[in-house]
């Protein structure tokens, strides 16, 4: 059967491509974050903050186009689910990008001369990066199984996060006020990555909804 709505299909595909492109931009930010943290590279941290404008612009354009497609094309069934999912996923990606900005701000504000701090932030970010990469791939290939698999990484991130928090609480008790404050800040930074992981599981839920209309709640 020929596609009688080729123009609409093309517009939908374009919308999906933009969601994927947005994912890649966010992924880049996290890769840069690792380098900025390890090398205490303030310029790169500033770059991550500036880069957020691109991500925000993409989210805005996805929202506007989705809104127009709904108003003008009266989408139903899988078409409608794709558009709703594009809006929700781009919203999650925007939040994930915001967390990278918060971490970049931390890099800029603090001295980062404590190896333990740096290594923990880098370690948790390095756990998160493959998770984000996998979900972008799962979105592109509409792979529900692969999407659900990210929850395994999320569990790992949660466990690691809790372990690190305990470490830093201990540090905060034992050392000077200054170091205690620093330890608290690191906990807040680690929390950003833990939250980013939660947003990736939201994306996984949306991929499932987009593909087979099932609503799931991943832990």
């Amino acid at each position: 059967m020929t596609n009688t709505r080729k123009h609409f299909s093309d517009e939908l595909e374009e919308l999906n491509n933009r969601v994927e492109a947005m994912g890649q931009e966010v992924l880049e930010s996290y890769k840069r974050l690792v380098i900025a943290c390890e090398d205490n590279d303030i310029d790169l941290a500033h770059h991550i903050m500036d880069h957020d404008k691109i991500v925000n612009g993409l989210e805005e354009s996805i929202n506007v186009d989705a809104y127009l497609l709904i108003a003008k094309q009266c989408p139903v069934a899988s078409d409608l689910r794709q558009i709703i999912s594009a809006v929700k996923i781009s919203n999650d990606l925007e939040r994930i990008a915001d967390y990278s900005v918060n971490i970049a701000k931390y890099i800029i504000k603090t001295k980062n001369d404590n190896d333990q701090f740096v290594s923990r932030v880098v370690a948790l970010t390095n756990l998160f990066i493959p998770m984000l990469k996998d979900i972008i791939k799962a979105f592109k290939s509409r792979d529900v199984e692969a999407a659900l698999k990210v929850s395994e990484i999320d569990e790992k991130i949660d466990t690691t996060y809790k372990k690190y928090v305990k470490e830093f609480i201990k540090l905060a008790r034992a050392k000077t006020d200054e170091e205690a404050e620093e330890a608290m800040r690191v906990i807040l930074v680690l929390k950003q990555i833990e939250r980013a992981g939660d947003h990736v599981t939201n994306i996984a839920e949306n991929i499932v909804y987009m593909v087979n209309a099932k609503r799931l709640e991943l832990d």
Partner: protein
Amino acid sequence: MKTVFKIENLDLFYGEFQALKNISLEIEKNQVTALIGPSGCGKSTFLRCLNRMNDLIESCKIMGDVAYHDENVYDRDYDVIGLRTKVGMVFQNPNPFPMSIYDNIAYGPRCQGIKDKKRLDEIVHTSLEKAALIDEVKDRLNDSAMGLSGGQQQRLCIARAIAMEPEVILMDEPTSALDPIATLKIEELMNDLKKDYTIVIVTHSMQQAARISDKTAFFLMGELIEVDSTDTIFTQPKNQKTEDYITGRFG
């Protein structure tokens, strides 16, 4: 954006009844302009002014300017035949001539004096191709056009209009007699055709206007209530009457 038609202060009367009231509107090149509004709002009457199809109605009186490339088509010595060659029309009900598919398309060019068989073959082929009908009829060009389905007949009428190499194609509810799939095929076609032609379409279906047009004009009781980009009309119309109509609150 190049303006093809510039309509200014157009009033139209059928006898004592004023069907169009002070309409000013511009039709842009290579765009699809949709005219929407409830029955009797004047949208078809307006469309028919663009190639002077209202001339045949005796009681019809027109005032104001309908400028096609800066020339008022209602000027006394305006070349109406030339206008209708450049501004083709497709009607609500498909109206193929009772002759072969080939002859339907070749009819207009032949009337214009084209006799060369090769040239006519070329025109027929290109027109059917542009109307997205060629694949369905290429093996039966000599069959009667009356044997085609409604949707195919309507695309044949579009091909027939294209054969005259028009600049503008006016469409008066071109899909209201067609089933949903045939309708979508015509809509897809319009999206493709706007690369080469300027299209003005009257439609009862707001969704159709939303799907295919670049610009939408909303008519109500002979007045042009609002005209804007289709994106704007269907997401943030400025006039409450437009909002009420497109959201189905009246009509």
